[in-house]
């Protein structure tokens, strides 16, 4: 019974597809899964917009939207109706073809990333051997869509926003990939299903998730920072900062195209959180061995929503980083830490099991972190604030 609940979506898919002739069945099965993903994640996106607005509001000691539906949970429906019925304004000097294709390309590449995420036991859309590489290839194409959006609007501010966004995304691709490489080094495979299965073991009830190792913890932190920057999320949201560049690269978009950009950003957040969950938090495996009776997809989606809540929490806490601070941080701090993390991962892999490798790896990471952090702070002459008043 528990097995059935765990595999309920797989069984449902098999049952629905059994009505078709045998030669059509694989394609139909895949199409069904694709349809499920395309319906589920926008619904999750709608829910997340409400959670975000209410979460940020509660952090700021105010109520969020609470008029539409019970506790405001039908607000996305109102937002959706607004986006759909707004006039679609395309500037007359804008490049119409590219202007139209940019949000399309963004949404397509973002949804492609879900094809390799294992959302439960046996619940991967396509089990690729180079799954991680496929995911990052799709992420790289997102930058092109952002650039196309900014350039095609023929608006200096949009172009500036797009350049900044692309520079930021490229800079943080490197830490993103390098923190994932550490996971690949230990697992020995680029396939995401194998990575999850490698983490699905328990010692004394505790799971073998990679976040519970020194290199995994450091890798996860850097992955989280890189993720926040990749999806243009606060505190790295200068490209779309509402008070800075109007709306950055999507200034000239209105109505449904703007909703598509918004959708693209949030769904990218989901997919990259899903990847982070798979790489570091054990994917669909339960946190304790006595909890394995809970269906695997529930664990995956709970970890995903937890990541989203942490994103919302960070947005409510931290002020925005300036462009040069952001780039400095990427190249001068996160990248060296990633390289040290790779070294530490190598040490971990080739040292024997025992307390020595824990101590050595943690020591190397903490000393590097403290050293580089203090050096950076001293360079920027950070200290307690002093105020000068007009006399």
């Amino acid at each position, binding site marked *: 019974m528990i097995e059935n609940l765990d595999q309920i979506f797989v069984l449902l898919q098999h049952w629905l597809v059994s009505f078709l002739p045998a030669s059509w069945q694989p394609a139909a099965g895949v199409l069904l899964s694709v349809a499920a993903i395309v319906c589920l994640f926008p619904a999750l996106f709608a829910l997340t917009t409400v959670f975000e607005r209410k979460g940020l509001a509660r952090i700021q000691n105010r109520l969020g939207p609470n008029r539409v539906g019970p506790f405001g949970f039908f607000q996305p429906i109102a937002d959706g109706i607004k986006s759909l019925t707004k006039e679609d304004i395309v500037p007359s000097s804008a490049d119409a073809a590219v202007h139209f294709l940019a949000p399309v390309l963004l949404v397509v590449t973002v949804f492609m990333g879900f094809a390799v995420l294992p959302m439960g036991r046996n619940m991967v859309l396509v089990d690729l051997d180079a799954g991680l*590489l496929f995911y990052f290839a799709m992420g*790289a194409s997102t930058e092109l869509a952002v650039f196309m959006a900014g350039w095609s609007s023929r608006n200096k501010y949009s172009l500036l926003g797009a350049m900044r966004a692309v520079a930021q995304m490229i800079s943080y691709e490197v830490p993103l990939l390098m923190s994932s490489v550490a996971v690949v080094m230990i697992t020995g495979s680029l396939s995401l299903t194998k990575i999850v299965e490698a983490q699905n073991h328990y010692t004394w009830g505790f799971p073998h998730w990679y976040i519970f190792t020194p290199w995994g913890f450091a890798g996860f932190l850097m992955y989280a920072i890189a993720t926040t920057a990749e999806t243009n999320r606060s505190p790295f949201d200068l490209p779309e900062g509402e008070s800075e560049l109007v709306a950055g690269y999507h200034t000239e978009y209105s109505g449904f195209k703007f909703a598509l950009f918004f959708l693209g950003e949030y769904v990218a957040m989901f997919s990259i959180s899903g990847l982070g969950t798979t790489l570091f938090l054990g994917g669909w495996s339960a946190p304790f061995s006595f909890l394995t009776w809970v269906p695997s997809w529930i664990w995956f989606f709970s970890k995903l929503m937890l990541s989203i809540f942490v994103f919302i929490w960070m947005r409510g806490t931290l002020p925005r980083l300036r462009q040069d601070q952001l780039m400095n941080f990427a190249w001068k701090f996160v990248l060296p830490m990633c390289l040290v993390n790779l070294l530490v991962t190598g040490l971990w892999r080739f040292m024997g099991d025992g307390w020595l490798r824990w101590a050595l790896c943690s020591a190397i990471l903490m000393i590097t972190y403290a050293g580089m952090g203090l050096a950076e702070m001293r360079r920027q002459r950070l200290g307690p604030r002093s105020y000068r008043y007009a006399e």
Partner: protein
Amino acid sequence: MSIVFYLLAALTVAGGLAAVLLKNTVHCALALTVAFAGLALLFLNLDAQFAGFAQILVYIGAVAILVVFAILLTRGSETPKDGVFSRSWLAGLAIAAAVFAVLGWALLQSARVLPHETAVPTVTVQQIGVALVGRYVLPLEIVGMLLTAALIGAVIVAMHEKVEHEKEGSK
């Protein structure tokens, strides 16, 4: 030669043609990106997973952006007044035909020389990795040094301008 191959080949060739025939330079760059995508799909069609995804990651994710930035930061983004075709198009056509002939002859020759493979060889990423740090480690390191030199050169070019600006400011 399946229908998929013909479609992908048509996509790649269309992208390449558009990249040379369009007037707006940024449109040309985007059409080139379509050609890259077609090439990546051709790799995937041949079951070369690593090559296909690396093509997308590197070419579309980085090289296309680089090309577009280069166009924008120079004056190439303005539509050329004199039209896109050069005046000595006959010589260009002759050279292109010669190159195509040589490449075609080499490909056809190799198809005759190589033995017929009955099974598609599966190259896993691990084999590629082992080959890279085993047999091909020297080219790997040379490419790495080349990239480092390019990075340092870029930094020096940018820094030079800053130093010159500062010198002029202090005068």
